[in-house]
């Protein structure tokens, strides 16, 4: 693997990091032996963890259960779920910021009488689904 292009002793900017991960993805896609290797995108992972923390904060008074999963619903994706009987969002600007960070936001009723809000993240790992 060629790495002369990047000076690994200095911190990469977000754009350089994205370019680096794109090159890694392309590299692994070419090599059959590397098909099972996933490269986590730290920027995207940080966004998912940000949304997880925000969800905890803005629904604190609801008693809702907040969780996150990686490689769910598909490989390379992640999701933050908020489940409760009545989910009250008190800090609406932060809530909207969380929606903007996610690839997709969905809210729906469940059959057990609770409600679920899900923030889905694409491109969590290299070679992932868009």
């Amino acid at each position, binding site marked *: 693997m060629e790495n002369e292009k990047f000076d690994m002793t200095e911190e990469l900017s977000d754009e350089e990091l994205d370019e680096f991960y794109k090159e890694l993805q392309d590299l692994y896609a070419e090599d059959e032996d590397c098909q099972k290797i996933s490269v986590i995108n730290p920027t995207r992972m940080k966004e998912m963890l940000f949304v997880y923390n925000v969800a905890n904060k803005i629904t604190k008074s609801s008693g809702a259960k907040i969780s996150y999963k990686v490689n769910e619903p598909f490989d390379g994706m992640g999701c933050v779920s908020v489940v409760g009987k009545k*989910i009250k*969002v008190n800090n609406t600007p932060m*809530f*909207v910021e969380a*929606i903007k960070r996610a690839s997709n*936001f*969905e*809210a729906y*009723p*469940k059959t057990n009488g609770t409600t679920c809000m899900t923030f889905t993240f694409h491109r969590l790992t290299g070679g992932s689904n868009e």
Partner: protein
Amino acid sequence: MNNIKCYEAVKPVIDMANERFAPAFRVNEEKNKIFKSYCDALDSISDECGTQSYEISVDEIEMTISIAVECDDIIVKDGKHYFCQLAERAIKVCFSKGEGELLKIEFVFPSIWDNQW
């Protein structure tokens, strides 16, 4: 699709609240204009999500206006979606289960009344 416009459903409730709050409080026309734009945004969401009904109430102490819509679900793929624009302007948003298998989304908006004294 719901044929009732949101503001048409809200107006009778606002009129009743006006009578209760008068003469100490009166509608601020500027705030009312902004509130009408919220109702227009809710109509857009209704058309998209297939809203079944509107539930409107006015909190007598805080004088906030609550509008709840019921729909199958809501999906937002873009931060510029009407839902985001509306949620940012609400004081609070609540999600719960509505009638049957429907999702109930309640938006609580700021008061449109000003103290006259």
